[in-house]
Structures are given as structure tokens and as C-alpha cells.
């Protein structure tokens, strides 16, 4: 399997008045055809910026300072805007967090979907309309003809997110970046949306990057997981490996923070401290000050290394998961 997307050494920095924010600081990963990768991290860990870097939508004062983003073999890290515009929505699509905000409130659904097709293909409106209708049917929207005539405010949140997903799949892209697409939805709707997304990637062979802060979501969805902390990937591996045997203390902490039914009454685990200030990252390991397994070695930045079928950035892997009480 060849990689649809191969990101290596990606660094996206923001040059603010207060200093340089290294939002993404050396990220590597690859996604193959039909594969779903979960990109997990807390708010501000750089996971969304990674997504926007791939689409070339980093606005000043930010820019990609280093690294390569190979999409189907072509490096698009610093490709010209015209090239990126032809890729966006066509070969690479994006699904956003809040479906209330991502549809234009004054345009009907059909207008917005047809526009997304016509931006990349020269076909007549009738065929574009038919393709939009079929796409809505594929994501489980009943009576798609009527929904097409509706305005966004007439649809529920779950329905709008289905429209957003249908729009993302319209041009049969090779890669879809989903930025917390279920965070704003009810749990039941969340499960349905995940189901639809999974079904569509299987059917179409589209690769997907699912950005989330919720390990529970990607546990049942992704083929592999990359955990990000302070702009770097700290642990990366197959979903089963990472979920069942997390090695990095941060991953262990994230998993421990998920409440489960069989620990009622027990004190919920929490990672101490706050996410670090991106302008003043701690010396050495960025997670060091919050880490229970911290040793003297952590005063230097750990390199990423291959440990037990995964890539890990830690001196003290929690092989026995002893932190998880």
C-alpha cells in the first residue's frame, strides 16, 4: 500500500509579536488509501494546525517553515495557491467541528453543494444536482430532494454534519481531514456520524485523518493513532497497541481520564497541571512538568524512537501502565 499522504518533519510556526509559537514542531506520519488515522491531543496541541497545514490554509503570521507534505508523491508543503485551490475540495476535503457554522446561512444546500462540484469540474448543473442528491442519500438523509431545497437553519445539527460529510465526499477525494466532526453533536448522533464516515471511507477507499481530543472516539474508528502534545507526536502506532498498551505517560493519562462504567465511585484520573504555554515550553520534554514518571533524563528533549511496534517520544515508557490507578 502506498501512502496517499506522507508528512515528514512538518514545522508550522506562528511569528507573533510575543514570540515564535511552534504550533507544529516536527510531525511525521503517513496515511494510506482507505486508512483512518486518529490524530489525538488536547486543545492547543497543534492537531488542527497540522490539518490546516496540509490544506495550505495557514494565514500569516503563521507559515510552514520546514518539512514535506507529500500528497500522492507530490510535495505540496509550499505549493502555489492555484495548485492548492485545485486540490482543496477536490482531492483533499475537510469536515469541520461545528456544522452550525460551516454552512453558509444565506445559501440553500443545493447551491452550496453544486458550487463545490462546479468549482472543480465542468459539468452541467443538472448532473451536479443529481450527484449532490445521491451524496445526501449515501449519508443517510431521508428525502434528499427536499433537503437540497432547504436552508441550513432548517436542518438539525446532525443533519447539517451529514450534509458537510456528503459535501466532503462529493468529488471523491483521496484524503479527508475531519477536524473534531462529532464534538458538537449528541452521543447518539455522534455514533451515527462515525458509522457513516467509516462506511464511506471503506466504500470509496478515501484516506482519512480524524482529529479529536477524544480517544474513545478513535478507539472504535481509526486504524492507527498519533498522539500529539505541544506540537509534537509523542506516541504513534496501531489503534489496538496504543489503546490496550499505551506506553507514553501522556497517552496513559488520556486513557485514564475517560470515565468508564465499571469504575463508578472511584476517583477519576486526571492529568495534573495545564497544557503548557506555547511561547514558553518547558526545557526538555514538554510533558515533563506534568508527568508522574519524570526522571532526571527528562530535562533533555527525548528523540522519537521505535519501541514495541510503534514510535514513541519518551525515556520512561509505561510498559506496565502502573500510572493507571
Amino acid at each position, binding site marked *: 500500500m502506498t501512502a496517499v499522504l506522507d508528512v515528514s518533519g512538518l514545522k508550522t510556526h506562528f511569528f507573533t509579536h510575543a514570540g515564535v509559537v511552534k504550533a507544529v514542531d516536527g510531525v511525521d506520519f503517513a496515511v494510506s488509501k482507505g486508512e483512518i488515522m486518529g490524530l489525538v491531543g488536547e486543545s492547543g496541541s497543534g492537531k488542527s494546525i497540522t490539518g490546516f497545514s496540509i*490544506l495550505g*490554509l495557514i494565514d500569516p503570521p503563521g507559515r510552514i517553515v520546514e518539512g514535506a507534505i507529500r500528497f500522492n508523491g507530490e510535495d505540496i508543503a509550499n505549493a502555489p495557491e492555484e495548485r492548492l*485551490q*485545485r*486540490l*482543496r*475540495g*477536490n482531492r483533499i*476535503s*475537510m469536515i*469541520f467541528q*461545528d456544522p452550525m*457554522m*460551516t*454552512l*453558509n*446561512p*444565506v*445559501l440553500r444546500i443545493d447551491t452550496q453543494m453544486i*458550487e*463545490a462540484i462546479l*468549482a*472543480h469540474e465542468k459539468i452541467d448543473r443538472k448532473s451536479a444536482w443529481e450527484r449532490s442528491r445521491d451524496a445526501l*442519500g449515501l449519508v*443517510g438523509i*431521508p*428525502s434528499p430532494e*427536499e*433537503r437540497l*431545497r*432547504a*436552508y441550513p437553519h*432548517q436542518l438539525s445539527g446532525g443533519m447539517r454534519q451529514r450534509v*458537510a460529510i456528503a*459535501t466532503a465526499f462529493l468529488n471523491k477525494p483521496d484524503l479527508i481531514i475531519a477536524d473534531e466532526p462529532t464534538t458538537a453533536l449528541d452521543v447518539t448522533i455522534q455514533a*451515527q456520524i462515525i458509522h*457513516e464516515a467509516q462506511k464511506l471511507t471503506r466504500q470509496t477507499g478515501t484516506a482519512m485523518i480524524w482529529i479529536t481530543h477524544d480517544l474513545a472516539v478513535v478507539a472504535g474508528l481509526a486504524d492507527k493513532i498519533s498522539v500529539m502534545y505541544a506540537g509534537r507526536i509523542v506516541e504513534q502506532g496501531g489503534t489496538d497497541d496504543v489503546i490496550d498498551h499505551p506506553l507514553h505517560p501522556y497517552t496513559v493519562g488520556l486513557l485514564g481520564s475517560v470515565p468508564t462504567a465499571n469504575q463508578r465511585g472511584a476517583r477519576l484520573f486526571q492529568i495534573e497541571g495545564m497544557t503548557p504555554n506555547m511561547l514558553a515550553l518547558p526545557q526538555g520534554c514538554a510533558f515533563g512538568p506534568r508527568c508522574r514518571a519524570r526522571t532526571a533524563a527528562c530535562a533533555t528533549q527525548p528523540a522519537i524512537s521505535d519501541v514495541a511496534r510503534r514510535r514513541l517520544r519518551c525515556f520512561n515508557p509505561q510498559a506496565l501502565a502502573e500510572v493507571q490507578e
Partner: protein
Amino acid sequence: MTNTATPVELKVETPFQRFRAEFFESKIATAALGIFCIIVLLAVLAPWITPQNPYDLAQVDVLDGRLPPGSEAFPGYIMWLGSDGAGRDLYSAILYGLRISLTVGLASGVIALLIGMVIGLVAAYAGGRVEALIMRIVDLQLSFPASLVALMLVAALGKGVDKIILALVVAQWAYYARTVRATALVERNKEYVEAAQCLGISRFRIVFRHILPNCMAPLIVVGTVQTASAISLEATLSFLGVGLPQTEPSLGVLIANGFEYMLSGRYWISVFPGLALLLTVVSINLVGDHLRDVLNPRLKK
């Protein structure tokens, strides 16, 4: 997932339909709109419903000058609103005057809106130096009273309908530019713009198809208010004698004509055109006021 759900009767209420329903909730605004429509109708139909063409010197007799309202100029021809100093039937003159006033107001309003809208959008989307330059010009322009700018321009350009429209456009485009830029700045940072970028839609389409329709609400409000002020500004200029020539009497010219007779008790020559002007401007402003209430999401119930 199977589509066994019963088809829901989805009543597609367009934003326009909702807006229309909300607008007609107010009796005052509905009445104002009605009056404005009647005024427009009267102005448009003036050549067919007036007894006299005040521009046609053959129909105007100086000997009929300054007749009080209700006088009979000749048997069967009653001047209900009297006549002015030149012997023009005031009712006819007012309707013809309204034609000019409305044409000038609407034409300058629409042209200024289009120019201001494009400039404001460019400023908001370009940002940086372009925006700074445009907005400083707008500030400079707005620091002068609109009447002063228009007065200077008309004095320099000369009389005529086209010249006064040009002067009013120059005096008013900045209001539109500022309004559009402020709204567009808010809109361009909304997520649907980012989503449209992610769909690979061109910049031009994003600005004009996605951002612009979302800026329409404040633009419509400013448009109505500025049109009303354009009409009164034109009347002001004509009253001062720099606007339209005597041969094309707008409401301002008619008021000015009667001004000298006010103290001698011949009130009607100024008062009736003045009332027509008042009615026009107030009805537009009432409509604009209510539009602002309806279109402002913060005042929504």
C-alpha cells in the same frame, strides 16, 4: 441505514419570506411603506394624471400666478393646491418635482451603494495597506458634512440632474463602504468562509457569493436611510439655488420659489411642496427604521 422514516413535510421558508412576515408585523412601517408606494406611483404616473405639464411653457400662464388653493384658473380647471409665482399649477408641479427628487435620490443611492459596497469588500478582504488607505480616505470623507461636500461639488460642476447625482454619490459612498467593510470583516472570519476555502472555491466567488449576501442586512438599512437623506440633500441644494435649474423644478426649487412670498401670506407655494418632501423622507425613514429592527439579530425575539 434504511430510509423507512415517513417523509417529513418540510416547509421551506426562505429567509425572504420570514423577513417579509416580520416586516408587516409593524403597522407604522406597513403604513409608511404604503404611503411611499403611493408617492412613487403618483410620481411615475405624473404625466398622465396631472392637469398641466409645468415644463411646457405653452401651458403655463404668468397671469395665473400666486392663485390661492382652490382657485379656478379658467372654468372647469380648479387649482386645488394653488399656483406658484410663475403660474404653475402646484399639484402638477409637486408631482413632477417628486419625479426628479425620487430619481435623484434613488439613482444616487443605488450608485453610491454599488461603489461603496465594492470598495468596502475590497478593503475587508485585501486587508493590510490597501485597507488602511481606503479606510483613511473614508474617514477623511466622513469628517466633512455630506451637505458641504455636495455643495462644493455642485458649485464646481454646475447645474443639472446628472451633476447633482454625481455630487450625491461622491458625498455618500463612504457610508456604504464603512458599513460593508465592518460587516465583511466579521463575516470573513466565520467558519463558513474557511469551509468554502477548503472546498477550493475561488476568492472572487467567496467574496461575492458567500460574504456579500451575509452583509446585505445592514446595507439595506443604510441604503434606505441614505436614500432619504439624498432626497433631502438634493432639496437643500436646490433650495440654495445650486442644485437643479428653474426649468426643472424639483421639490427644493419649488420651496425656494415660494419662500419670498411666505411673509405676504401666500403660504401654499412653499408649504405644499414642503409637505410632499416631508412625507417622502419620513415614510422612507420609518421603513428604514423598522428594517433595522427586523434585520438586527440582536433585537430578535
